[in-house]
């Protein structure tokens, strides 16, 4: 039953590659934005907060279309990338990773922001009086204490990326081996006559993947919390 066909393998590996890359790309930006939202006050903070959450509330197809307008070969950003670096995002797996990054971004930022807000500023002050530079404080205090949020947010964004459909198909299309992730492969299978069997298997695969991600999130979260507090859980 779990003997996968080549096409299914390709879709699975591509999905993982796209999701992992997307999360990796969004992490530094997500951290910076979460830090701003958690610790700083500035004009336009509410606006930034709203912008970050847009991908969560706007129909995914609309987000994908916006990305196409912006990053397409003729789009303002896309043409610049193409001219300067020869980077083309439309119809490429890198484009799919950008979609994954954008769609997972609100979830990542929310989790990180909560985690950053929970860090006692007093600990940072104490570390500074003990001779630690801001960089050392970040590495030795902030990162370890924010790691539960980092893990939870990353895995949430990862799951969201695995399930991404609308924005992906609008921006990078549905090319087997390039942009055809699991949901897109499932869609194609259901569209073609006699594709039900492949459809069932892809559904099963997606469910398994989701369960594995949730389990990983729970286990990792637990072990990190235990490491952070030394408390038996």
């Amino acid at each position: 039953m779990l003997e996968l066909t080549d096409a299914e393998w390709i879709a699975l590996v591509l999905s993982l590659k796209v999701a992992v890359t997307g999360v990796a790309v969004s992490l530094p930006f997500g951290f910076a934005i979460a830090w701003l939202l958690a610790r700083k006050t500035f004009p336009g903070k509410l606006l930034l907060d709203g912008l970050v959450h847009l991908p969560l509330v706007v129909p995914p197809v609309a987000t994908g279309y916006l990305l196409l307008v912006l990053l397409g070969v003729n789009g303002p950003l896309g043409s610049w990338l193409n001219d300067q670096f020869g980077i083309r995002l439309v119809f490429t797996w890198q484009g799919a990773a950008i979609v994954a990054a954008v769609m997972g971004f609100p979830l990542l930022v929310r989790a990180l922001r909560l985690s950053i807000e929970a860090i006692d500023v007093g600990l940072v002050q104490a570390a500074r009086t003990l001779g630690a530079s801001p960089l050392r404080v970040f590495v030795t205090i902030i990162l370890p204490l924010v790691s539960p949020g980092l893990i939870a947010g990353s895995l949430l964004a990862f799951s969201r990326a695995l399930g991404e459909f609308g924005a992906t198909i609008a921006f990078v299309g549905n090319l087997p081996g390039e942009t055809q992730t699991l949901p897109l492969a499932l869609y194609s299978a259901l569209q073609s006559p006699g594709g039900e069997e492949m459809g069932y298997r892809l559904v099963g695969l997606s469910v398994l993947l989701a369960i594995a991600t949730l389990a990983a999130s729970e286990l990792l979260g637990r072990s990190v919390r235990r490491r952070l507090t030394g408390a038996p859980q």
Partner: protein
Amino acid sequence: MTRSLAVAVKKVEGAFTLDVDFIAGEGVTGIIGRSGAGKSMLLSTIAGLQEPDEGTIHLGGAPLYDPARNIKLAPEHRELGMVFQEARLFPHMTVKSNLNYARRNTQAALATFDEIIDLLDIPHLLSRRPHHLSGGEKQRVAIGRALLSAPSALLMDEPLASLDLARRREIMPFLEQLRQRFALPILYVSHNLDETLRLADHVIVMDQGSIVASGPVEETLSRIDVQSLILGGTTGGSHPEPVTIMAATIGARASDGLYAIDTPWGTLAAPDIAGAPGSSARLRIRARDIVLSTVKPTGLSIRNIIAGEVGTMTEAGSAQVDILVRPPDPSAAPPLWARVTRRAATQMDLQPGQPIWALIKAVVLASDIDLEALR
């Protein structure tokens, strides 16, 4: 050279203005005042966690903050150890990692790692996480962590305020050792009279961002205006009960268990005094714990009977009078405050200048100081 901390800063925050100017030498400088007096703000300004609007901060002659010379050292470069009200231990590290967090400059080290953990009695806690420590243990680790950063001065911001009475009693001896062991300027912020009495050599009294009094502890804290500032509103309502503060040396313990305590008023007797024979202590005697007599009493259980004369008499509400009892030689000892009822004062016909005997129950002197008694 002796180390000293010279602070002259001004900082306005909303309606509040912090404006202080002082020099703290080696030993403990108590900074006392009610909450909201600006004590913590002062300490975090010295530590570099807040920036003043103007002024300078010097440690041992070297500038930590001197904008005119474009010097604004970051907190990590000020070599100041800070102990906060909450221990602020890093929860994801063991006690040992917390203690070792500061990268030690071994040349400036106050003492070795082992000496410091022995002093604070924490060697058995090294492998534990802060989560598993009691409040008192956490605060001891926090003190050790600050000491191990090899500071040139120590800033302590109400280190006992979040602990219960038992925990305070547990930590107090360590703080006293700290003072004796290390020749550092230590700024000790507190709103508690007894903590300050026990630890400080000098005291700075703050109110609404300014210094309202400063000087040697007994002298400064005996001032009635200082007392009503610190104690006002908590004892005796609008007429706070005065307190007599006396330096004392603990003498030998007699076979019946009483200690002889040498004070400027002569030798008094007290049971269970906190401190070893030969050590110095400060006595705090509440005015209501002193009984007055116009004749030398006999046949009473009271052991401590001292002769003086009536000084000023101050109304304390409609029914009570605070009476200052002066020693025969005013330069030898501070006056004593006694609070009696107006009826007693009238019936005894107390007049300034008349001889009087002040009676102090020995148990009142037991200076296992009840830190909770006053605030």
